[in-house]
């Protein structure tokens, strides 16, 4: 069968001179699940945007179903049956799910949106592909998993035959990932073709038929998944052997750094989000929090870092109260924070990389000199961070918006690691970053902990929590359901039972261990 998509010798140079694709040849067979992998900044998103008409190739051919195409905008690509779900979602937050899905091709009645029809069509398409959504919910209020299903349905609603998913699993919990894979398989059974980008090689092995590896804008190779291993793919991506396991010297637990006591949080709608949560974090250990997303971890971290007021309870860092203090005060107490949502909290996109690196320190020496900021120092910090953390950019003065997703994350990691914290709170620290960078961040986390920093790790990636943590607590519906003092000796299944609230340790059992 002829390929459904064929890219021939694609070059892409961005206006700032970055060459994101260099002579890429890429073909996709109809009805296959094709994985696209590569390091951060390898040019994956760019290549997909070219197929989707969002970017025009500087040179090269795009052939869809045997015809050479020149898409001027994504509308042209949509008309040709191509749909794409972006790394950063693009829904209208104040609209309902159904309105978002039909947006652009609304069923109308006398010129107005026919809401009932929109809802009916949403239900119908949602059932057809097995993607559960609530048609009447406002997008702002639904979780990421559902947002993503909305994005996929939106593409399908517009008649997509070929579906491009840019890092769909980066924001999903393991359960949601499984659901997504089921849906993808169903789509393929119904004759669709799927291209998906991921950094998790396990997922490539699990779901794809073929895989293409990009490195620095070039194709390293395309091969049937059955002939690949995680190790071989990692090597192709990075150009060297990558440690997929974390090497960790035994923990040397030190003094108590943070104490969280009977923390309770009731949100605006009166729901109890955190209920009587107590635990300690010690210097030199990584405490992992395992839990299905939405069980209070986000709020817990926000409260601990001063971003959200608590209802009651207490929290001390080195004996100093930090609850209901400002983020600045919490940071000054020695806490640094990798936020789970980098675009909302972690970065100012239009500001430069350098300026994003100093938000926690611009007001003190050596960055502040006299009445002003010493921008020479800032540039130095920028250059050092770019080098040490491998941020792919020609210049620290460029806006963060010009970086690839994974490189944005590295900017945050660089900032929070170089602030020399006593307690490092890392929420989803490797979300969306490539194997090489993931290895790096994990190594650095372990190094921080070995050097005596207390680390709190919150991650939706259970594998990450299990391989990095020294001690694990499980959370379910805002309560701690279990504590496992030796992370190495607990199984995924066991943790799962506590994460889903099926098993529950008693207060007395846990008291000693928290």
């Amino acid at each position, binding site marked *: 069968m002829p390929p459904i998509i064929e890219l021939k010798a694609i070059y892409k140079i961005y206006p700032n001179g970055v060459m994101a694709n260099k002579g890429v040849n890429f073909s996709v067979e109809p009805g296959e699940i094709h994985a696209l992998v590569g390091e951060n*900044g390898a040019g994956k998103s760019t290549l997909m945007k070219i197929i989707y008409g969002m970017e025009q190739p500087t*040179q090269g051919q795009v052939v869809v179903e045997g015809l050479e195409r020149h898409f001027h905008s994504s509308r042209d690509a949509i008309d040709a049956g191509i749909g794409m779900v972006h790394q950063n979602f693009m829904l209208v937050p104040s609209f309902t799910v159904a309105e978002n899905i039909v947006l652009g091709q609304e069923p109308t009645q006398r010129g107005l949106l026919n809401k009932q029809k929109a809802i009916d069509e949403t239900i119908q398409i949602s059932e057809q592909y097995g993607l559960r959504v609530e048609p009447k919910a406002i997008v702002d209020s639904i979780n990421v998993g559902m947002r993503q299903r909305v994005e996929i349905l939106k593409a399908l609603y517009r008649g997509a035959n070929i579906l491009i998913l840019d890092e769909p699993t980066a924001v999903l919990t393991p359960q949601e990932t499984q659901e997504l894979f089921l849906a993808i398989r169903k789509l393929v059974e119904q004759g669709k073709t799927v291209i998906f980008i991921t950094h998790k090689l396990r997922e490539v092995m699990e779901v794809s038929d073929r895989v293409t590896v990009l490195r620095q804008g070039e194709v390293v190779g395309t091969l049937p998944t059955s002939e690949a291993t995680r190790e071989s793919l990692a090597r192709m991506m990075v150009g060297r052997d990558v440690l997929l396991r974390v090497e960790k010297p035994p923990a040397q637990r030190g003094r108590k750094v943070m104490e969280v006591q009977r923390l309770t949080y009731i949100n605006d709608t009166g729901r109890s989000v955190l209920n009587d949560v107590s635990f300690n974090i010690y210097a030199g250990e990584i405490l992992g929090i395992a839990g299905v997303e939405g069980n209070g971890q986000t709020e817990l971290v926000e409260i601990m870092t001063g971003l959200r007021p608590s209802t009651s309870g207490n929290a001390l860092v080195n004996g100093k109260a930090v609850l209901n203090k400002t983020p*600045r005060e919490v940071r000054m107490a020695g806490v640094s924070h990798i936020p789970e949502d980098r675009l909302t909290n972690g970065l100012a996109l239009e500001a430069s990389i350098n300026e994003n690196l100093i*938000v926690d320190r611009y007001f003190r020496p050596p960055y502040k000199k006299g009445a*002003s*900021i010493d921008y020479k120092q800032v540039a130095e910090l920028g250059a050092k961070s770019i080098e040490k953390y491998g941020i792919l*950019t020609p210049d620290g003065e460029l806006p963060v918006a010009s970086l690839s997703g994974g490189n944005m994350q590295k900017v945050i990691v660089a900032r929070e690691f170089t602030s020399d914290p006593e307690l490092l709170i890392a929420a989803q620290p490797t979300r969306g970053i490539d194997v090489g960078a993931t290895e790096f961040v994990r190594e650095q986390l372990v190094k921080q902990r070995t050097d005596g920093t207390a680390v709190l790790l919150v991650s939706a990636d259970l594998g990450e929590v299990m391989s990095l943590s020294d001690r694990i607590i499980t959370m379910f519906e805002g309560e701690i359901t279990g504590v496992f003092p030796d992370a190495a000796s607990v199984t995924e299944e066991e943790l799962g039972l506590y994460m889903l609230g099926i098993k529950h340790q008693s207060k007395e059992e846990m008291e000693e261990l928290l």
Partner: protein
Amino acid sequence: MIRKLYMKPAVREFLRILLAITISLTLGFIITLLVSEDPVGAYKAFLTGPVSRINRTGEWIKEAITLTLLGLSVALVFKAELFSMGAEGQMLLGALVSGTISLFVPLPAILRIPLALFAAMLVGFLFGALPGYLKAHLNANEIVSTLMLNAIALRVYDYFLIFHIKPEGAGYNASDFFPKEGVLPTFIPNVPFLAEAYELFSRRANITIMLYIAIAVVVLVWYLMYRTPFGYELRMLGANMKFARYGGINTKKTVILTFAISGAVAGLAGAHLGMGIHEKLIANITIGIAFEGIVVALLARNNPVAVPFAALAYGYLRAGADIMERSSDVSREMVLVIQAIIILLVTAERVLPIVQQRVNNMRENTKAEAIEEGGQNVI
């Protein structure tokens, strides 16, 4: 090479404005053709009016000084992604306070003038802090609150002017002329070897030392915005408020301070109206200019260094329009239309992408070359 030049933001900005002005002047001429008996004469009055006589040039420069200060005041607020319509009230109070000092405080000029200017800035600062406080602590919409504060300031100004400042029994609502000690001196010092120029300017185009003060304020505002911790806070607040908060910036304080500093600059503009332009306090002293700072800030893209140029260009348009109205059969309304077109074009974010597309097309030919070289910054 061309491409490299094009990438420089300053160059791109300049080209953008030049293009917009050319297009709008052409459109303006077409409109003039349609409405005027003597389109060439009318348009000439518009284009060359402000430089045709020294006193007209003086008017233009003085207005540009006011516009510069107002533009800076608004640019500060815009840069933080906030909005303010408060310049009118801040200017009124600035004019009132500085005017009162100019009129009544028996100090020599060397003390009276700085005191008056300082007082104008202080009152602008405090009055500006108000909407900031309301925004930061009560989340009051800053457009509404600044407009309402303007109404209050106007009443206060009128009350003092009419019942306390204007000479008893006068049949008009204005103060006496300020004494010499309360008027800003001419920008050219009165020294022997500059005597001729001094004479010319002080009598026919009295541009004052506010010229230098305004330039100093430009530099200061630039420095504040791009070199100080406060400026960093302000810009991060504008770029992503949640990021600013997460990073530990006191966003409430930043909002209040931004409004306050913006108010201080507007207060100074108010002082210029009294002590530099009218040399007395009059009713409606801010009329026609209070909201023009918004246009200037838009034209300058909130870049303090670009503000004086935007103010000169926009001031020129305003002056030219006035002259065309007075010396031809084109009505004020038509003039306003032409002005509006220029503003629209220059500020429209859409213009740039169109130009960019053009340039891209132009570059088609050089692409192959670029690829052979391996791009510019291949990484």
